[in-house]
């Protein structure tokens, strides 16, 4: 059985800067995979390549055994990739439920059906009470959840989460972690970019560490946090020597 998502030898160059070099990763069905690494490691670049913001300079991206390298973002959503944005991009003039309806309309054109689906997703994400509030009035943690809700309404096979747990209070982060777990229970595969290791490590089945645009290591979270290469990437060589 092939992996749900695969990148094969992906490169991304911006002028002289190499943001991703020869990145090959795969994400299996039903997994929660964390994509971590220090600042500037190329996490967001890789994330955007998978979401279809731009095609990679070189290499291919596969979803469900299908080459989607040249497929634009809109079409990738149709194929089953849902995403959130690191800097939230709510539809500010629309109500919370209307935001989610936009997502639901990918799978149906019947408004009643889309609205029902959207409300269901809002209940799932704990935003139902805020359904009729304009998105501009949500607090930051609610906006993060709205990003997730909108993406879930598109009924994705693969959900890409871009730092949804960063910058939240510990309690909010915990709620977020539980939400991600429940998302996986519904059969959705999750690939999440995260900066804060201590939040993601207990959550993910597997972590892929990027450093300087390359895959540094990948494996179980428990192994990753002890890996000297990871420690040195995050903290510098001095700390790694001691361990």
């Amino acid at each position, binding site marked *: 059985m092939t992996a749900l998502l695969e990148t094969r030898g992906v490169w991304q160059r911006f002028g002289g800067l190499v943001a991703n070099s020869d990145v090959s990763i795969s994400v299996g069905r039903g997994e929660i995979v964390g994509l971590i690494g220090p600042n500037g490691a190329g996490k967001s670049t890789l994330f955007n390549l998978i979401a279809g913001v731009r095609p990679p300079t070189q290499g291919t991206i596969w979803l469900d055994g299908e080459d989607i390298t040249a497929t634009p973002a*809109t079409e990738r959503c149709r194929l089953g990739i849902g995403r959130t944005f690191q800097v939230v991009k*709510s539809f500010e003039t629309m109500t919370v439920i209307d935001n989610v309806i936009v997502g639901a*309309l990918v799978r149906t054109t019947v408004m009643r059906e889309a*609205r029902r689906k959207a409300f269901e997703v809002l209940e799932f994400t704990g935003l139902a009470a805020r359904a009729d509030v304009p998105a501009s009035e949500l607090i930051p943690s609610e906006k993060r959840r709205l990003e997730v809700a909108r*993406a879930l309404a598109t009924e994705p096979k693969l959900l890409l989460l871009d730092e949804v747990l960063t910058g939240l209070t510990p309690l909010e982060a915990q709620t977020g972690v539980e939400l991600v777990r429940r998302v996986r229970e519904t059969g959705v595969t999750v690939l999440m970019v995260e900066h804060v290791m201590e939040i993601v490590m207990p959550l993910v089945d597997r972590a892929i560490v990027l450093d300087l645009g390359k895959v540094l290591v990948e494996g179980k979270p428990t192994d990753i946090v002890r890996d000297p290469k990871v420690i040195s990437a995050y903290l510098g060589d001095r700390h790694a020597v001691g361990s």
Partner: protein
Amino acid sequence: MQDITHAQRRRRDLIIAAVLIAVAACVPMFVKDVYVQNIMVLTLMYAALSQSWNILGGYCGQISLGHALYFGIGAYTTAILFTKFGILPWFGMLIGGFISAAIALALGYPTFRLGGHYFAIATIVIAEIAFLLFLNWDWAGAALGIDIPVRADSWLKFQFTRSKLPYFYFALAFAAVAWLVTWWLENSKWGYWWRAVKDNSEAAESLGVVVFKSKMGAAAISAFLTAIGGAFYAQFVSYIDPESVMSFQFSLLISLPAVLGGIGTLWGPLFGAAILIPVTELTRSFIGGSGRGVDLIVYGSLIMAISLMRPDGLLGLFSRKRKKEAVR
């Protein structure tokens, strides 16, 4: 729960509209003054035009300041087809609508790749080019324009000299149709796509919204309806030239009511037109024939006042009030 409140609000809007139409239809029974009737016709026409503009500019967020082009195409198509080929205005109206929609699509193809202000600038330039072309196009009457020969009153030829009432009822029907189309679109996939594109096109794309197609759809519908208004106007004044149907002033007059009333809202254009058009017409008549510039000063001041104090239009006053109540 959810579904009910939403459906209820939509039904309430529909009922309000029905009542307004019924009331408006009765007004001419009491208002016999031709001058006032004239203002009512213009108010309804601009309400409808602005409602059409609002589809592209308000809902989809693509600010066009060149809608005079579609207005003029509608007027010219009807006038030319009637005077040169004897085609009845009713058909000319529809043909003008389709030509305008086709032009909107052809122009949208390159211009919708432009972002923000550049799109607005492009629409001004294109409309201005069309204006100059018509000013020099001999076959279409050039600067002299086209005189639509007026004979006996006739619904078939859509021309009336004895009374303004038929025009009034057509303008009312036009405003009602434009409103209904908007009402229907607002709760359709298109309506949601447009608002998503306006608010954040990158997020919209990630949710499967085909941004380019949404813009094209909005432009075509908007241009079609605007051309219907132009065709009506040609019949109403029975003489057109580039200055009177394609000048920049029309682009402003078409967009302003929506901006004033509430951009991207269902009731904004009607509300805005009901205030703006009578005010400008009265200002013009008070100051007399030479007061042409004054109405432009009025628009200018209004735009500044609105953008400074209430960027979401006058309707925003009501929703702000509602919000405060909700907080309490």
